[in-house]
């Protein structure tokens, strides 16, 4: 397939999925809608994460910071300004924080970057809970006026579909190529005339904007927020997890993984939360070890490769356990002696 056909395919798939998600509230149960909301939230978060962090290989753990900032913005402003405005404001503030944070840390690579973004997220969380405790004298905030369920669902759907569309579009621009170039070899990209500093900053701000808008849109479902729920580092971890298991560089990987995870979360989390978390950890380890390209890179060839590897391993073990290896060695030694 050439690039034009790919674009048409991706656009059609996105169109179909959006249409299906759009019709869900009219026939699905309350439970199905709530599950779809979680699913859409992670689709947006991990697609936007993959857009910057997947292609540049800058491992950011700051998603929960932007999410929480968005959530707090809408919690504080929803009564004064409208629904759309508070979401836009949430995205704008998250972007501003991302630009400031990115200017400080984006020159560091690898583990330093990951650890620093995590540290900054925790710093923001602790600073806000300290501020709440000592200045305003509250622990959390109750959202009295919330929009209807269908409004929230529609907003989240628009955000998720918009993020995937953005992801499709960015891949086809110079900007997307520059991001990929930074991921492959940052110095070479710089030599070839990419303004890496500005590109990285723009990419980081883009992820933050999506996370901030998502935080603003989803938090109203919870009706009560406090720093520990909206800045929960687990939101950031799970985003990264989903993107990595799905395949961070791919377009549809995060979406597939988000669906799988939401199903897993809803079925396992209530009965056995620890089992859910353990299987999450195990899945992450297995996918990093055996499927580094993510679920989206799974092909028949990969399965065949696994089968052949297992067989080869088993043949080796049988050779060893049957004592044939020892006998072979002894024979070789005797031949040398003679």
């Amino acid at each position, binding site marked *: 397939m050439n690039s034009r056909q790919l674009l048409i395919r991706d656009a059609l798939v996105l169109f179909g999925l959006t249409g299906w998600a759009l019709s869900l509230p009219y026939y699905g149960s309350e439970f199905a809608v709530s599950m779809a909301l979680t699913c859409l939230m992670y689709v947006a978060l991990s697609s936007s994460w993959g857009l910057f962090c997947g292609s540049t290989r800058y491992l950011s753990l700051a998603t929960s910071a932007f999410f929480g900032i968005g959530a707090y913005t809408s919690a504080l402003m929803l009564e004064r300004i409208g629904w759309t405005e508070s979401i836009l404001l949430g995205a704008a503030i998250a972007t501003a924080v991302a630009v400031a944070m990115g200017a400080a840390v984006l020159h560091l690579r690898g*583990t330093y970057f990951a650890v620093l973004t995590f540290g900054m997220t925790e710093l923001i969380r602790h600073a806000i809970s300290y501020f709440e405790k000592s200045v305003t004298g509250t622990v959390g905030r109750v959202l009295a006026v919330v929009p209807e369920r269908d409004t929230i669902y529609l907003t989240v759907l628009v955000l998720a579909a918009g993020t995937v569309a953005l992801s499709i579009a960015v891949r086809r621009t110079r900007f997307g190529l520059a991001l990929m170039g930074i991921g492959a070899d940052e110095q070479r990209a710089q030599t070839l005339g990419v303004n890496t500093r500005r590109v990285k900053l723009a990419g980081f701000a883009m992820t933050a904007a999506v996370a901030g808008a998502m935080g603003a849109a989803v938090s109203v479902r919870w009706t009560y927020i406090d720093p520990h729920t909206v800045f929960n580092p687990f939101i950031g971890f799970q985003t990264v997890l989903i993107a990595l298991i799905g395949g961070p560089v791919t377009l549809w990987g995060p979406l597939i993984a988000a669906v799988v995870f939401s199903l897993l979360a809803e079925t396992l989390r209530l009965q056995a939360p620890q089992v859910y978390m353990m299987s999450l*950890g195990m899945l992450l380890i297995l996918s990093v070890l055996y499927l580094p390209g993510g679920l989206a890179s799974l092909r028949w060839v990969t399965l065949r490769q696994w089968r052949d590897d297992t067989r080869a391993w088993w043949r080796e073990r049988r050779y060893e356990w049957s004592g044939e290896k020892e006998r072979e060695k002894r024979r070789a030694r005797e031949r040398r002696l003679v």
Partner: protein
Amino acid sequence: MSATAWLELIASGLITGGIYALVALGLNLQYGLMRILNIAHGEFLMLGAYLTWMAQASFGISPLWMVPVSFVLLMLLGVAIHWLFFRRLAATSPNLDIFEARGLMVAFGLMFLVQNLVSYVWGGDLRGYDFLTEPLAVGGAQFAANKLLVLALALAFSGALIVLFRMTLLGKGVRALMQSPVGAQLVGIDTKRLHPAMFGIGLGLSGVAGCLLSMAYTISPAMGEPYTVTALIVITLGGFGSMSGALAGGLLLGVVEAIGMHFTNPSLKALLSYVVFIGVLLLRPKGLFSK
């Protein structure tokens, strides 16, 4: 403030600092030597603490006996984990950068796994037991005997590790590996054996730290994560890969936290350590003591 109050304050800082140093030494060993940033390090501390608690509560074994036992058990676990996960990871990763990123992800997975396994098996409640709780007077100041014991053992273990690395051939090999992995292999240092062993020793140290912690404080499945973060802060303070830097950094952070908490507000503790951490990483990324 009187002199005794200062003494008590600094000593309580040193006690927590000793634990910090012990955890950080283990993490530093893993990161400095193998580039594995083990985010799950604190979880193994928690595992050590739970093993000690279980031995004490169910079988009546003295926690002191559990110090070497938890070291050995956690070390074996570390060797097994290295053999199962990181060996394959090192073999399949094309370069060190990718290995580091993937190792971080595997460690995240381990964190989820161990933390939830413990809370599945033992439940999420706070646990604890009494051990040497009578106070002890030293120079006019009062200390709990168990905390002094914790400090002494933590310092003894850290000191032993540093001496091991300074004085023995094994330590020389480890330091050579830290300087240049390829060069070390060329002069005949066996990485295939040293890597699992050092990963195991790192986990063993965190097991000892957990065992010591359980003597003086209550334990819960969520206790590990703050220690991981603190250990990260300590090794950035002391410089990645520097053993005596980690010891000094750990003690320093403990004292700074104790003094800062005394003069401001206990809920600022986490905020304070993150500010120190980010400040050091941004201003002196090679560590406070680097030249």
